[in-house]
């Protein structure tokens, strides 16, 4: 994990309002290290794109400072910030060829022609698009356009590259392929990347760190593993990966383990991560793959009665939709290791989890 | 050219000119619109409809014989009676576009004088019967010339030293060139002889050159009173009825100068192939009777085409203190130095002089 003393990009108490009535970004503090791949992840309207646009210079912060390399950039216009940017729709100039598009940032910097050609060639080489130099963007496929957009944002060797949902328009297979490609380019070039997406698997695949946005606030800033394994609040737990959530009231807390009385009356235990005092409401979160069907050998501490509602065979595992504690959308992933569990629709059984695997978080009204 | 293409052109022409098809009516009468059409509706249409029980649809047009030609040649004649200028009446008649009108069907004067003798000389033609005499004159805004001697002659119109200010003139060689020659001292009786020579044309343009910088050119008859009222011009040539109306109906401080007036006729014609020819002939005979012509004169200051009507001209319809007879182009006081528009001269020379006039304008 990258954590530099002198951050390369720094948001300091940044606020943004469009209408003077509500804040789209509320008191944002974020440091990004040089060479880091940081993803801003969140649902639409969460403020992540606004942050990116403020960094790029297309929006001005209503309050607070944004610093780049230790210098405040609030008053520097976009074209002087030297930040490369890849847009959601690629924004390749339709009236220019691929070559002209790539030469554009170099030409506006008045770089000699020979050097421009050299740089264009090398960046085309990098994205393996040499053969397309004379085509117009409209003659390229979506994936090809994406590569050119990427190449264009990199050709003038910016230290910081911003990407605004660059893979959103691609089909699934191509998207996954491009994720690796972008990741490799990042690793090879060592540029700092700030990446905006609403796709959590994309974020998990590519990032050094992920900032999860909701309601104008960073809910959690962490590396992918921490984010997935140790969500700090109910929103993050729900937004990253699949999980089961249950509401309850804290009965007691001891040694970091909370005893919670669920709304159905069942008593379970969970790791107290982000809870109030005894008697306050909490949301419990447990990942489907951390739930186990209780057998004699199980190490589960908390157990609940469950009834199987639906079974989906997925090869490596079986996805069971169960009715647990009054919630019939409770998902458990059962590894396809043996058939002896006797899973069948309507069967009643017990499920459970280790205390560490269930996290007691802030209370959040369930959907 | 084949008959088919001819027909197609005519139809295309007709579809351009005849935008609206008349609703079912016994007679379609076409005239120039505005106060003039109103005077005809009051004096002719209403009494005729009351007498015959038939209906009349009144349409407006902008003059010329293009529409009549298009209708006749396409065989789809929707106009029954049209009010045209003399030169157009003669020309359309020569081209076979009009129905001949038998003068013996026109009613005699109340004292029994036959129509052929009662109508003023030159007002009856093979295909046309005149209803009014109108005139091109010039008018000025009397509120603007208080300190001067009021202008009295055509020469004053061209005298920008004695009477500074902009002048409005019609953007057409017709009338404009005659005015120039009259102002230059050519007696009205010789104007067309002089204008028929190369030197005469040059002389007219030379006279016009002296005021060219001060002229605002107008196209539509409604413009001169407007230009005067707006103060855009101090003098303007105009049609006498328009000035009269602006003065007496709208209270504008305009005065007319009758010296060098050029008078012309408006005549009723019937396009060849009219579907209501009998009714049209009846309407023309009825409208050009002594009483009707006299009645029209109380609505607008255009002179009736019959001698017997003159004694019967009354007062202005909205102001009984105005004796209409004094405001006619043909009133003795106004008629002292008048010129009749020579339709034959213009039939011969309109195209040529129009080109020269535009070339002169563009110089």
């Amino acid at each position, binding site marked *: 994990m990258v954590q530099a003393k002198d951050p390369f990009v720094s948001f300091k108490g940044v606020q943004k309002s469009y209408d003077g009535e509500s804040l789209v970004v509320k008191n944002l503090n974020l440091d990004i290290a040089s060479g880091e791949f940081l993803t801003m992840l969140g649902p639409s309207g969460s403020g992540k794109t606004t942050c990116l646009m403020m960094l790029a210079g297309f929006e001005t912060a209503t309050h607070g400072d944004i610093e780049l390399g230790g210098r405040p950039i609030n008053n520097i216009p976009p074209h002087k910030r030297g930040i490369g*940017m890849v847009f959601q729709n690629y924004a390749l100039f339709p009236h220019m060829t691929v070559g002209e598009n790539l030469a554009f940032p170099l030409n*506006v910097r008045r770089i000699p022609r020979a050097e421009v050609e050299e740089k264009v060639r090398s960046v085309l080489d990098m994205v393996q698009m040499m053969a397309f130099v004379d085509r117009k963007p409209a003659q390229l496929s979506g994936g090809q356009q994406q590569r050119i957009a990427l190449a264009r944002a990199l050709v003038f060797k910016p230290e910081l590259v911003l990407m605004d949902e660059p893979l959103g328009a691609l089909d699934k297979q191509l998207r996954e392929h491009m994720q690796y490609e972008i990741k490799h380019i990042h690793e090879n070039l060592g540029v700092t990347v700030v990446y905006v997406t609403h796709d959590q698997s994309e974020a998990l695949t590519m990032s050094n760190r992920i900032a999860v946005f909701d309601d104008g606030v960073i809910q959690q800033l962490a590396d992918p593993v921490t984010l997935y394994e140790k969500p700090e609040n109910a929103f993050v737990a729900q937004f990253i990966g699949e999980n089961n959530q249950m509401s309850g009231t804290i009965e007691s807390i001891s040694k970091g383990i909370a005893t919670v009385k669920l709304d159905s009356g069942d008593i379970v235990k969970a790791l107290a991560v982000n809870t109030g005092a005894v008697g306050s409401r909490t949301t419990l979160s447990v990942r489907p793959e951390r739930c186990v069907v209780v057998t004699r050998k199980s190490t589960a501490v908390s157990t609940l009665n469950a009834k199987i509602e639906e079974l989906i065979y997925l090869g490596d595992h079986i996805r069971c939709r169960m009715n647990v504690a009054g919630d019939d959308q409770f998902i458990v992933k059962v590894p396809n290791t043996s058939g002896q569990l006797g899973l069948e629709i309507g069967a009643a059984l017990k499920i459970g989890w280790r205390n560490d695997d269930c996290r007691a978080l802030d209370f959040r009204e369930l959907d | 050219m084949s008959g088919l293409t001819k027909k197609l*052109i005519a139809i295309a022409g007709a579809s351009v000119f005849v935008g609206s098809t008349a609703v079912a009516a016994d007679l379609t009468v076409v005239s120039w619109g505005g106060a003039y059409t109103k005077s005809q509706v009051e004096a002719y249409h209403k009494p005729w409809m009351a007498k015959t029980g038939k209906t009349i649809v009144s349409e407006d047009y902008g003059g010329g014989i293009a529409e009549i030609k298009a209708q006749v040649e396409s065989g789809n004649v929707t106009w029954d009676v049209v009010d045209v200028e003399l030169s157009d009446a003669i020309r359309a008649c020569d081209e076979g576009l009009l129905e001949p009108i038998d003068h013996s069907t026109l009613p005699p004067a109340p004292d029994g004088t036959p129509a052929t003798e009662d109508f003023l000389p030159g007002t009856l033609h093979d295909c046309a019967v005149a209803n009014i005499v109108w005139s091109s004159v010039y008018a000025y805004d009397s509120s603007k010339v208080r300190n001067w001697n009021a202008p009295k002659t055509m020469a004053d119109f061209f005298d920008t030293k004695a009477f500074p200010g902009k002048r409005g003139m019609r953007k057409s060689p017709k009338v404009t060139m005659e005015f120039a020659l009259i102002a230059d001292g050519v007696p009205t009786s010789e104007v067309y002889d002089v204008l*028929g020579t190369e030197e005469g044309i040059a002389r007219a343009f030379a006279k016009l050159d002296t005021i060219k910088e001060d002229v605002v*050119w107008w196209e539509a008859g409604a413009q001169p009173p407007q230009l005067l009222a*707006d103060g*855009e011009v101090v003098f303007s040539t105009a049609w006498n009825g328009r000035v009269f109306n602006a003065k007496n109906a709208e209270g504008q401080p305009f005065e007319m100068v009758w010296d060098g007036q050029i008078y012309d006729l408006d005549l009723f014609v019937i396009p060849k192939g009219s579907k209501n020819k009998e009714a049209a002939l009846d309407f023309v005979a009825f409208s050009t009777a002594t009483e009707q012509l006299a009645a029209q004169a109380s609505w607008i200051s255009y002179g009736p085409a019959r001698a017997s009507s003159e004694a019967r001209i009354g007062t202005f319809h909205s102001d009984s203190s105005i004796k209409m007879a004094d405001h006619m182009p043909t009133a003795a006081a106004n008629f002292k130095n008048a010129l009749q528009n020579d339709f034959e001269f213009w*039939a011969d020379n309109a195209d040529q002089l129009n080109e020269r006039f535009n070339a002169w304008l563009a110089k």
Partner: protein
Amino acid sequence: MTDSQTVTSGAITAADGTPLKKKLAQALFRSRVRAVSLVVPLFAFVMASFVIPIFALMWQGVYNDRFSTYTPNLTEQLTAWDGLAEPGEALFAALVSDLKTARKDRTIGRIATRVNQEYPGTRSLFTSTARKAKKLRAPFKESVIKTNKKWANIEIWRAMKLTSQDLTPSFYATALDGRYTVDKGFVAQNENRQIYVKLFWRTLLISASVMGLCLLLGYPVAYLLATLPLRTSNLLMIMVLLPFWTSLLVRTTAWIAILQSQGVINDLMVAVGITADDSRFSLIYNMTGTIIAMTHILLPFMILPLYSVMKTIPPSYMRAARSLGATPTAAFIRVYAPQTIPGIGAGGLLVFILAIGYYITPALVGGQDGQLISNMIAYHMQKSLNWSLAAALGGILLAGVLLLYWIYDRVIGIDNMKLG
């Protein structure tokens, strides 16, 4: 290869054995027939109401049989005559016989008008001689010249010889300020009658100025329309479309009220002290007035195509250009403006072509410099009824527009045009 296809001597066949190509053609034929039958009514309508009349009218520019139709004898004699020798008795005899018929049939006006177009001032010669034709006796040359000695002028006979030819270049010659003569071919028109070429140039100049002004004024407005929030831009759009909803009369009155020397603008300038009361600007009844008024009317035709093009340009292009290091000006010139070229082309062409055809506005507010070629076409269509000359003028105008269109296609490319 699937079961339904078999290879027979190299050609692929369908399941029933017919060659695949033939089968495909059959299948396509039916849909093609259907498509064509849908278009036929429109095609017929356009042909009948637009294409054929236009060509028929154009045809009039080089073909006029008025004279020969109504003077069969004279035409025969004129064709035999070489146009150089003194006209002889045969010509005069034919003249008298045709004049007699024409007088009787009321076609003398048509003959006279036609010759008058070629040789001005002769219309009354024909109508007056026709009136006396019945009384004329042989030898006709002598008696005709006795009625009017103008008949001895060989130029009149040459003019008649020209008008007796149905297919004639003389209207196009006139439209280009020239004259076609029997003895000398094409010669220049008398200098004091040369007007059409001048008006063609003026029309092009005014149309180009109006186009340029519309672009200059319309571009920022279209940009605002395309970028402002919907509520504001709707209001702006209504203001742009306002000229469409105002009648010509109201518009004209408004211009006069605003532009005339006692008008709003001049009053304002006098009040502010920009100009003295006795030296007010002439903003109307001259070329300035024409250009102002036409720009006002035609502005929406520039704004709307521009707007429709600009609306499709996402803001991300400008942002991309800025992020790549371009200053706002450079981004606009190198990225935004080139993408609006289809709109500029469409708007420009639309405004230019419409401007070329305008004649009511120039007539009302144009004054002495406001006369355009379209005014002359209207004059010859409606007043002088010289449709052949109108057709020739229109033909030249059409050729000019097509030439510009061709140049446009070569420079910008017609498929680059976007009308909305």
